[in-house]
């Protein structure tokens, strides 16, 4: 029982023989293996997913967005790509989102040029690396230089499989494998596993979106629903040429790609993709929340209107948007309701007159906002008496729906 619950490891049992041990470990393994790569401090985890649909539980390990850098372009170009990758880091709704990794590509086919690129990348940044090439001889020296960063070695296929496996084994690195079709991929995956490579990544890049969706779906489905071990690994896709890049990455994020390699890093493309990743990988049980504080919308003056809402991100965005629409600069006080919307929070006792009064006091709201009034959502009009009593503020009951705020604010006397 303890074993089934993963409380103890099989290694602790003195009586079980090797064969039984392998069989037991196999049956207890997660449907999709967890692969870690990247050096200490910037380690990334991929795989270990258990669902086909996020609403059934959640997706655990967000897609790793990776920028490709080639070894056959000038050092200046390489340097500027690396700089660009580093600069793609933003704070969004309280979380840091960033471009996560670099894919170094041995386009030149030479080991010297590849080594130089790897040296540069390691000097300039601490991003996790994926080493792409088809010639193990040319990849080998670079892989050794980067070993401490724990890069993923890519890509093994049927023509270089033995050498790539040997290299991955020697350096104890994850290995990415690819094949023209799923049947061949399952064979290569089985062979790789037999050679005791545990950390495998499946390259599932396909040319059109139809085949891309189909293969990503089948692999995920077989891994989870049929416990088909050869497909029980994280996945990687190349997003293709610049025209296709956005559409392919947009497909890959919700549809099971663990790593997406981008060819270019224009922020107007990457920022929306990072936002999509953050959205899709939000835990459906734990709504996205904004920080509890007072927000200024427009450029409010001390006597501008003060409004109250909850920290459920969707509620906040809606209310903030509607205030903006009104053109009336305002203060928006966001109370922490653990991500519940106004009605739910009120019903669940997470949005109370006492709580709001305390927030007004601790956040020094009255110093900042001198209008002497607070506008509360129409849904919680019942709170008005008590809130007035506790804060001394004139409590104005606002509209029930946020959409009515523009008109309401425009018609506000004074």
């Amino acid at each position, binding site marked *: 029982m303890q074993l089934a619950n993963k409380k103890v490891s099989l290694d602790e049992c003195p009586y079980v023989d090797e064969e039984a041990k392998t069989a037991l470990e196999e049956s207890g393994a997660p449907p999709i293996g967890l692969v870690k790569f990247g050096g200490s401090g910037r380690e990334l985890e991929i795989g270990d997913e258990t669902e086909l649909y996020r609403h059934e539980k959640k997706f655990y390990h967000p897609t790793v967005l990776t920028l490709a850098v080639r070894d056959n372009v000038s050092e200046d170009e390489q340097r500027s790509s690396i700089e660009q990758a580093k600069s793609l880091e933003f704070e969004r709704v309280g979380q840091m989102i960033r471009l996560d990794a670099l894919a170094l590509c041995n386009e030149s086919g030479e080991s010297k040029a590849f080594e130089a690129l790897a040296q540069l990348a390691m000097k300039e940044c601490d991003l996790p690396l994926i080493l792409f090439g088809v010639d193990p001889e040319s990849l080998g020296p670079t892989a050794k230089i980067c070993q401490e960063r724990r890069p993923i070695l890519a890509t093994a296929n049927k023509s270089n499989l033995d050498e790539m496996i040997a290299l991955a084994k020697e350096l104890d690195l994850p290995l990415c494998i690819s094949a023209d079709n799923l049947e061949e991929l399952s064979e290569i995956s089985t062979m790789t596993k037999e050679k005791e490579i545990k950390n495998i990544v499946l390259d599932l890049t396909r040319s059109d979106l139809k085949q891309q*969706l189909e293969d990503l779906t089948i692999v995920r489905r077989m891994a989870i629903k049929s416990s088909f071990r050869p497909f029980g690994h994280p996945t990687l896709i190349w997003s293709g040429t610049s025209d296709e890049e956005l559409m392919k990455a*947009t497909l890959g994020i919700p549809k099971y790609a663990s790593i997406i390699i981008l060819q270019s890093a224009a922020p107007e493309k990457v920022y929306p993709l990072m936002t999509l990743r953050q959205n899709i990988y939000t835990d459906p049980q734990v709504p996205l929340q904004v920080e509890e504080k007072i927000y200024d919308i427009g450029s409010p003056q001390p006597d501008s209107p003060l409004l109250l809402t909850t920290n459920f991100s969707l509620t906040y965005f809606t209310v903030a948007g509607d205030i903006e629409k009104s053109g009336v600069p305002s203060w928006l006080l966001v109370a922490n309701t653990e991500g519940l919307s106004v009605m739910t929070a009120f019903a669940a006792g997470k949005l109370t007159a006492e709580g709001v009064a305390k927030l007004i006091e601790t956040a020094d709201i009255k110093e900042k906002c001198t209008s002497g009034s607070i506008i509360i959502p129409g849904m919680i009009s019942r709170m008005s008496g008590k809130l007035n009593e506790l804060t001394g503020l004139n409590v104005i009951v606002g509209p029930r729906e946020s959409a009515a705020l523009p008109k309401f604010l425009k018609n506000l006397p004074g």
Partner: protein
Amino acid sequence: MALEIPKEKFVGKTVQTRLGATAEQGGTRGKSLLIGAAEGLPFHSFEASNPNPPLIGMDVVDTLRGIDDQLKNMMGDVIADPVSWAKSCESEWHADFVVLKLMSANPEEENRSTEECASTVREVLKAIKLPLIVYGSGSYEKDSKLMEDVSGAAAGERIFIGLAEEDNYKSFAAAAMSNGHGIVGFSNLDINLAKQIAILLMDYGVNREDILIDPLQAALGVGLEYSYSVIERLRQGALMGDASLQTSIICDCSVAWNAREALDANGKLGKVTSRAINWEVITAETSLIAGADLLIMRHPESVKMIREVSGSLLGGE
């Protein structure tokens, strides 16, 4: 040994719905469009037949209030007038259908009369051959009368009118049924409300084939994940045999233009115009993958890109 690919078969399928009426069908549309009849998950052609590809429509708003200035500049003078806007949707941007949003009827703003709005509908129908969907202002009271007039103005054309909710569905249903139109039912990101509005409409006498459901499209960055999962669940519910969910899903992706980050001037986020277009395309593509049957788009460039997405998902060029 050949790899055995597990295929999912479902008991349910969505109903087939027709938009627009040609001369033979009693209207004046150039052609009518079929949507629905899906037997499987979207774009899963390896295991299911989904005979009708998604439809990509564009919206036309009859007032420029509430449309961002940057967007106005991108779209040009053509959008100053709903008729010329609709014409561009048809001849320049190749939309499959047009959604005319009669926002000017809003009694709290312009409060244009229902007769005037109905005449806009008439003019648009005269100017274009595409199937038409007409949305009201969002005011329950005003829209009841508005839809009565709109329905008459579009008699025979098999338009769809929206958005019907619990509080106004009877007037929408009556208006639609009197002239053979369809209805777009609205649910606020809630699968149970989606069921409920479909059941209310059907109990009132509306055919299932005459209903589309709008589950509320939230834009990228402002709740897209809710829409994504609700659409997935709606489609799965339909395939599992829930008759009240077997209507086609329409998603209004033009909401991307209201997302603050889409048009944010912050230079660190890259070029505004392409970011905003990407914002709309990502919003639309995720909805397609989740199971949207009809998309409402705003920017011509987004339409072009999402058409490529749809084509590639269907396995074409």
